């Protein structure tokens, strides 16, 4: 694979109800990413956004984002999945040789729409909606029960992951204050409100308004733009079957395949020892473990051991603030910061090879994984 690097990025500090319209949020992110890379808007050749018509309440939601997205009189397109998928689109455009610099952003403002209700529209109208029991919470609960049962684990084990995430969030300046819990205990997580047994409220991320943007560049340009390019050395993307009842929810086949492919492209033979940081988009504290195991960072059922190493979601992951459409992009940017040594309070020392992932669908139906590396 030809070398493509992330040369600039910006994450707007998320919030439960930001004092900005999405339009201004997006401007802050794209302007911020260009300034970070020391580039002008004219330098961009393509802009790929990730947002969702249902989230926006506007059809063809990207057409309202042309100006703020930096896409005026540019080649522009949209992905309606996760920001991490938009990166794939941008990457392909650059690899085609037809484009140089690509701006990629992901945005949504859940303070303006009922996210969990929108997810009901993800369910099958013929078989799931008449029963009306499948939603984001119950899917997470059923997945967690399947995982605990398959490996003989307890709710306490998942509570430990939630504690780990929330303590990590406390060290992340871009986490929302509501998620920054330095003194949280396992008991507090276990005693938090039940969302969908055995899933507790503090094992589930907090929805917030947010936008993240990054800029991709081919090798020659990347070296001119920055002395700290972070290279995309591998990528894998797989989709599992739609129906939850057709999948083994205690693991995640699409993540396994995606990671396997990304490692193969990047020439990684032993992810357990070679990957120092993993920023994964899990929808619950439990799913963080399932995805980390699927990515080969730990044996199946043994993902909990990763919290002792600290390399899983040092930023707090989505538990630091769940921003639909921007989640995967934020994971990528966090991994990039780690490799550049710029992760401030949550820096993992010596991080030089990271993976970051994005997903869509109930119980992570679809996963996309990137291998990111620093150096030459």
């Amino acid at each position, binding site marked *: 694979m030809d070398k493509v690097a992330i040369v600039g990025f910006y994450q707007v500090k998320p919030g439960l109800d930001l*004092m*900005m*319209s999405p339009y201004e949020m997006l401007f802050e992110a794209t302007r911020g990413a260009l300034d970070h890379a020391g580039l002008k808007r004219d330098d961009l050749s393509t802009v790929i956004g990730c947002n969702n018509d249902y989230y926006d*309440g506007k059809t063809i939601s990207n057409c309202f984002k042309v100006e703020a997205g930096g896409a005026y009189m540019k080649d522009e397109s949209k992905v309606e999945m996760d920001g991490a998928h938009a990166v794939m689109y941008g990457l392909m455009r650059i690899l085609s040789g037809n484009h140089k610099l690509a701006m990629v952003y992901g945005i949504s403002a859940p*303070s*303006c729409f009922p996210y969990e209700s929108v997810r009901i*529209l993800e369910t099958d*109208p*013929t*078989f*799931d909606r*008449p*029963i*009306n*029991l*499948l*939603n984001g*919470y*119950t899917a*997470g*609960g*059923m*997945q*967690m*029960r*399947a995982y605990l*049962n398959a490996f003989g684990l307890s709710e306490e084990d998942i509570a430990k992951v939630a504690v780990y995430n929330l303590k990590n969030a406390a060290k992340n300046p871009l986490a929302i204050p509501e998620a920054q819990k330095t003194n949280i205990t396992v008991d507090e997580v276990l005693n938090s409100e*039940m*969302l*969908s*047994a*055995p*899933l507790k409220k503090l094992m589930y991320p907090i929805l917030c308004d947010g936008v993240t943007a990054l800029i991709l560049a081919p090798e020659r340009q990347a070296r001119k733009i920055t002395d700290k390019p972070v290279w995309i050395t591998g990528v894998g993307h797989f989709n599992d*079957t*739609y*129906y*939850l*009842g*057709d999948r083994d*929810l205690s693991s995640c086949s699409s993540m396994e395949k995606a990671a396997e492919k990304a490692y193969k492209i990047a020439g990684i033979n032993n992810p357990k020892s070679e990957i120092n940081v993993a920023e994964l988009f899990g929808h619950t504290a439990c799913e963080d473990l399932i995805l980390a195991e699927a990515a080969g960072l730990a044996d199946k059922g043994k993902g909990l051991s990763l919290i002792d190493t600290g390399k899983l979601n040092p930023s707090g992951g989505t538990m630091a603030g769940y921003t639909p459409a921007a989640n995967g992009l934020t994971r990528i940017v966090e991994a990039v910061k780690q490799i550049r040594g710029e992760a401030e309070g949550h820096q993992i020392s010596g991080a030089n090879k990271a993976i970051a992932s994005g997903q869509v669908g109930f119980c992570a139906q679809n996963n996309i994984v990137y291998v990111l590396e620093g150096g030459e």
Partner: protein
Amino acid sequence: MPLPEYIKKDYKRTRTMKGSWYLTSYKYKFNLSRIKEYLKGLKNGILLGLKCRSCNTVSFPPRLICGRCLVKPDQWVRLPETASIATGSANYDEEDKKREHPFPVIAVRQDGADTALIHNISDDVDFNSIYIGMPLKVVWAKERNGLYLDIDHYEPIEDPAIELNKKEGSVD
């Protein structure tokens, strides 16, 4: 520095600008003629799964397409009324007034099928008592109309594994 209150109000106003999207006006097409056998079966109290001749996967309820083989499965197989819990959770949504909360939410795998479906369990089952592998049986609707909800819900039946444990336990 906290922002002046009037700015907050201005933003609220733009956020609540009028405009609606009638989601209930959407229609979803589904080719019932492809699952005629299944629906006819339900009306007569017979459960039919659909088997893919290529990979032998039996889906219940029938899936129109086998994603693995990209073919339309066409072999109907009769399934027993027994099933088991593939995984489960509980519903705490207070706005859902149908039952007392929390109540169990289950993914059920019909015996002989490879897929599971989300369905209801008897009202008197405590959400804490469900477990993966818990055996169940179909409870039919009072009146069967050849529709998906002809299976009203599932009810627990005796678990032979647990009965065996009890007997072994009584020996000591």
